[in-house]
């Protein structure tokens, strides 16, 4: 099911959407991402956790560091041997 609605957008967002092959899909993707973020933050608040941008940025940097290929290979061998 889909619905049609008329919305107003800032010029820069409108310009970006004009460059997308499917504006509806681009908007849906962005809104769904925001829905996930909101839901995660809501769950974490129930646990007494207030997330900060600074805290997330620390993890972003850490997660961006890929594991070396030789370590991943060692992991595959360990799993195969188990």
């Amino acid at each position, binding site marked *: 099911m889909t619905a049609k609605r008329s919305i107003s957008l800032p010029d820069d967002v409108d310009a970006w959407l004009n460059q997308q092959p499917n504006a509806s899909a681009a908007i849906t993707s962005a809104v769904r*991402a925001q*829905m*996930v*973020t909101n*839901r*995660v*933050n809501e*769950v*974490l608040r*129930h*646990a*007494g*956790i*207030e*997330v*900060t941008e600074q*805290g*997330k940025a*620390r*993890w*972003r940097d*850490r*997660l961006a*560091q890929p*594991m*070396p290929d*030789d*370590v*991943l290979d*060692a*992991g*595959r061998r*360990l*799993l195969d041997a*188990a």
Partner: protein
Amino acid sequence: MSRDIAVVLDDTALRAYLAGHVAVGELIAEIADEDRHVGIPAACLAAAYAATADDDVGTALLALLMTTPAVQLLPLGVEPGADDVRQAGILARAAGGDIATGHAIRSALAHQAHYATVKPGPATAALPTGWSVLDLSEM
């Protein structure tokens, strides 16, 4: 492996979430922002539930966490011949014999994911040298 599991949380990480540990929350939130997923091994979830005896709020918080779109339960015993069960058990040997830790190690290896914990010793001993173990107690 249809979904991108960035990080596996072990049972100590789940207990940190229950205790309101900010670092584990920020890790989950960052992974959600990246449109990736946090993997929670079934044995770790069971261990965390066991640790919430007489704590109805803790039990509810675990159930709530599992409804989060960025979180995925990693089952045990679903592979032909129960290969995943054998691997979890064997890997647990090097991690002090704890089955939940064994399942978390097995999950991290299978998904090539970071291993998140507040007690890095057992996983570090069992995983290959250089494997990414995120020590939540340091953040």
